């Protein structure tokens, strides 16, 4: 008698080791899966909820400064090193992995206004209210050695900003004018003046390394080419809808490290503006969300996002081309955030604030840190894509966008919205009751630029 039985190859269903995943035979025929969209929607919803559950961005607070932290500097070659300068002239070097201060030095009298690490990572420069530029060794002085700067340059006026060239021994300071210094010389090799206003910050373009940008206190942004003797161009920024009493200058400027001609500036009018340096007539994007002056901005090293620090005691993360932030960080104890940096591996954010602390945040609030197992990584990728796929569905969007805000900021946001609406309504009414074409429609982007000075 013959018996017909089902026979299977054991290789098809037996694992080699118990650590392997169980093999699951699947039939991908779409007719067998009529509810795939519904199932994926549920998964996306769960992923979104879990993301909110795991969103714990605050990692550590570094305390030790005895006055507000006024400036931060990333180390160019070491990820775990951070430098910070405070309002009492003290500079501290931190080890981020141990979360402790490894070195303290009294660099200046008064504020440390700016700090930058040389591209090689062996020394750093500081400027202060005592009109000096000092260069320091990165190494801690040995036992018995005095903590002394390598060089000290005495300037004529107070310096407010400092940045170093990407590859050469050249750095730029700003104060009453923008100066380009050679490291070997005690006087600037070039000075740019344009008008009599003082400058608040200067920064080198990291890609097109001969270009500089600076923010002046006459509400203007000035671009320079180091190879030319004269400044290139000047944009005057104005805030159209805020009170006149407020200053409306840009505080800081940051270039996109991956896209040579884009830069973003943090403005006093609560907004950030991303410009294309070739077309300064109007900004590419107006980034709105802060409810007070934006004090500092820094790009992610991938150039995809940037982070901003504001006087409203929050930190916000913006995608480079989005008008609104994707994330807001705040804690009860964090006061006005003065300086911010995005770490060089694009995973962390560092913020220095008025109340003497430096805080370490995750750049992606819900991300799991450390090495991921392959399956973990795959699952994370999948849920990320799911979230993206269903991001427009109302339930998912609601959960993904929900953030808790301090009461004051929440109410101020509302207030600002009311004001904005009122202004828009009034403008519409005026337009309605005047001759057609007499009150032109001005886009939000155009509103903020007063003029471009050649």
């Amino acid at each position, binding site marked *: 008698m013959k018996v017909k039985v089902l026979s299977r190859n054991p290789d098809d269903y037996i694992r080699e080791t118990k650590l392997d995943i169980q093999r699951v035979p699947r039939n991908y025929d779409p007719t067998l899966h009529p509810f795939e969209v519904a199932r994926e929607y549920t998964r996306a919803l769960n992923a979104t909820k879990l993301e909110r559950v795991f969103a714990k961005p605050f990692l550590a607070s570094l305390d030790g400064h005895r006055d507000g932290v006024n400036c931060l500097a990333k180390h160019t070659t070491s990820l775990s090193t951070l430098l910070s300068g405070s309002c009492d002239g003290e500079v501290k070097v931190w080890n981020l992995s141990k979360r402790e201060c490894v070195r303290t030095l009294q660099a200046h009298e008064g504020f440390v206004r700016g700090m930058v690490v040389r591209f090689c990572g062996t020394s750093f420069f500081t400027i202060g209210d005592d009109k000096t530029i000092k260069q320091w060794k990165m190494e801690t002085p040995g036992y018995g050695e005095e903590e002394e700067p390598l060089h000290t340059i005495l300037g004529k006026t107070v310096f407010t900003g400092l940045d170093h060239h*990407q590859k050469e021994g050249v750095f730029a300071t700003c104060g009453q004018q923008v100066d380009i210094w050679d490291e070997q010389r005690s006087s600037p090799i070039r000075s740019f003046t344009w008008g009599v206003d003082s400058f608040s910050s200067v920064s080198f373009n990291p890609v097109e390394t001969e270009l500089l940008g600076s923010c002046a206190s006459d509400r203007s942004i000035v671009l320079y080419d180091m190879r030319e003797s004269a400044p290139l161009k000047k944009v005057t920024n104005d805030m159209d809808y805020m009170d006149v009493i407020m200053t409306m200058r840009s505080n800081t400027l940051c270039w996109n*490290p991956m896209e040579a001609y884009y830069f973003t500036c943090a403005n006093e009018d609560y907004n950030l503006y991303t410009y294309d340096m070739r077309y300064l007539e109007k900004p590419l994007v107006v980034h709105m969300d802060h409810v007070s002056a934006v004090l500092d901005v820094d790009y992610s090293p991938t150039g995809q996002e940037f982070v901003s620090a504001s006087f409203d005691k929050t930190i916000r993360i913006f995608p480079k081309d989005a008008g609104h932030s994707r994330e807001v960080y705040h804690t009860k104890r964090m006061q006005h955030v003065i300086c911010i940096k995005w770490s060089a591996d694009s995973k962390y954010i560092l913020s220095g604030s008025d109340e003497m602390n430096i805080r370490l945040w995750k750049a992606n609030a819900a991300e799991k840190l450390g090495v991921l197992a392959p399956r973990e990584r795959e699952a994370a990728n999948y849920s990320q894509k799911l979230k993206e796929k269903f991001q427009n569905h109302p339930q998912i969007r609601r959960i993904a966008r929900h953030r808790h805000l301090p009461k004051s900021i929440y109410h101020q946001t509302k207030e600002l919205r009311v004001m904005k609406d009122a202004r828009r309504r009034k403008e519409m009414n005026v337009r309605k009751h005047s001759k057609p074409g007499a009150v032109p429609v001005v886009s939000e982007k155009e509103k903020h630029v007063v003029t471009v000075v050649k």
Partner: protein
Amino acid sequence: MESEDPEMEREDAEDEREDAEDEREDEEDERRRLKLVEAITALRGGRKKPLGERSEAAVRVSEFAVTAEGERQKVQLSDLIEGAQQSPAVPTQTRKQLQNLSRSQKTVEQPLSRQESERVQRDLAFQKAAVHVSRWKSVVTQNRRSEQLVFPLNQEPSGPKPLEKVVTGWRVQTPLEQEVFNLLSANKQPIHDPVLSPAEEASLRAMSLEEAQIRRAELQKARALQSYYEAKARRERKIKSKKYHRVQNKARRKEFLKQFDQMVKTDPNGALEELNKMELARMKERMSLKHQNSGKWARSKAIMAKYDEGARRAMQQQLELNKDLTQKVRSSLSNQEEQEDGASDPELLPDFVNDAEPGQVSSNPWMRGELSAEPAEAQRSEQEVAAPAAEKEQHEEEEEKADEEEALLRDFESRRKLRQKEEEEQEAAVQDVEDSDEEEGPADQDQEEEGLSEFRSLFRGVAEGLKEAAAAASSAGCSSAPLEGGLIRIRTVEDAELLPPEDVELLPCSESPPSAPQEEAPPTGQKARGNKKRKRNIELKEVLTKDAKTVTVPLAPTLTDTADGSDEELDQRGLIMEAFAGDDVIADFLRDKRKQEDAAKPKVVDLTLPGWGEWGGQGLKPSSRKRRRFRVKVAPAEPRKDQRLPGVIISEQRNGSLSAHQVSALPFPFENHAQFESAVRTPLGRTWNTERTVKKLTMPKVLTQLGTIIQPMTEEELARKKASAAGAGKEDPHKTKDQKRRARKGRHSQKI
């Protein structure tokens, strides 16, 4: 300004002095005035300084203070040119140019003010910088469009590097090394990458000469043979003689048979294949209408058959042919083979599965059409023992009748005979199987129970069918179904004969699915029929739902050995049935659907107001006329979309609870609804996609490596992107490979 002012004053003072000399008459005034002037000039101080002659080299010499020698005059252009005119060192061309210049009377335009000139310079510089910066545009757009960005940008490939790259300036030093390298280079062996030498590669690519020649000869021979064969075939086809062809065919058949017999001995596998081929041909024959006497030709012959012996014979021949072709090939080989191979080859069906065919005749609805004429003859045929002699007699008798209809039916009869013969054989075979089954005993049975249940059920059906065929041989209708005998045997042969054969067969069979004939509840003959007739209007589905319950009806064991197993099965079934006793899902669904249908039907609205226009009160009803008048009749609703879909409820009403989850407006990057819908419809998970697709679909947009500093973009990147863009047309796969490698390298990297 400083350089201009003193000169102006100086000139003024000189004028005044000349005036004083000319007009001496007003001496007093003059003196006074002079005094005043002197006083004023004294105030300025140092006024009398003679316009200096240059005595020593100065770094900066004012161009305005240069004077002609000796005289207190300005230096003119002509003064300077004069020297040039005379000196032989100045070329003549320049001299001419200078002459032209001195002749021209045009004044030079005033230079721009410093502010303006600076603005122009700035503007120019800005434009230059903007153009310069624009070279990054391609990189930026490329990065924006790319599906994945891997950071840091200038990653070095991981893994071991070749020695030559790691150790720069490595040289052959020892004599042994030298010798080795000399040998390698002399033999054209690869030094860096130990793959194939060029010669080896070439030899791999090429075929040897001998081989090629042999190959060609073979091809030539094959071609020649083919052409000969074709020519021969053509010649033979043209021969018109029927007899020739007949003889040929016969010879061919004989040859084939001889070959086949030989094959059986020598190459049993090949013989089996041949057998299979024959079997296939038989199947085809059975399926087609060929030789069935149903064609045009056959019909015309049937008309002629009454009068024409030839036509009758021709038809007969056709049927013979059909019989021949449809007859199952049953060689000693096949039996033997099956007995041998069956156990070893699990792919093959067991014996009785194959053999059961004649038994299935009754159970298989496809077979019934052929057998429709059987009942009439069944009894007779049963009495006669199946034998070739009887068959011949039958033929003779039938031919004597020579009736038209008989002639048409003849083929069926002959087939039936054949089948009966087979049945006899089959029965014997089945008995064998049964015996063997019993011999195996109950111990094995438990184990085999599950695996064999399928076959056993089939087999049981076969056995039942055979028994009936043997005993009653006349049961029409669902005689095949293994029923408790009594119920079916109500039907007599006469009944069966009275009924139109197809009808009898088909009706009950449509009720019982052929898949599980032995477990199917008995349709209980006439009763079932009666029920059916009464219930004509009732929905089929509803009837079916009830049927699902009748499965539980216990089955009388037909074979002793299977009784235990079926009991167990029944227990299982009973348990399940008990557990889901209240679950009549289909009925529930139908009820739901009816409810929905009723709800959707338009309702008649009665707007009658009692007491309006007539007397009202207790016990008084509005008149029927009034009621008719005020009854609003709504137009009948459109036919429901699910009217013809029994298993579906289509509700066309908007469901409010769903809208909370639906997208109300078209999201930004999409241009139309179809795009968005298709994007949502495409699943990403590995439940619906292959591993590769999932990997591709869930690839993160930005990959960064853990603990690595990401440097800003550099000029090298620009050059690299340009090169890759240029090489994209040629070497796209290389680039993707590179990207893949980088992605793989970033194993510990995560999405930012």
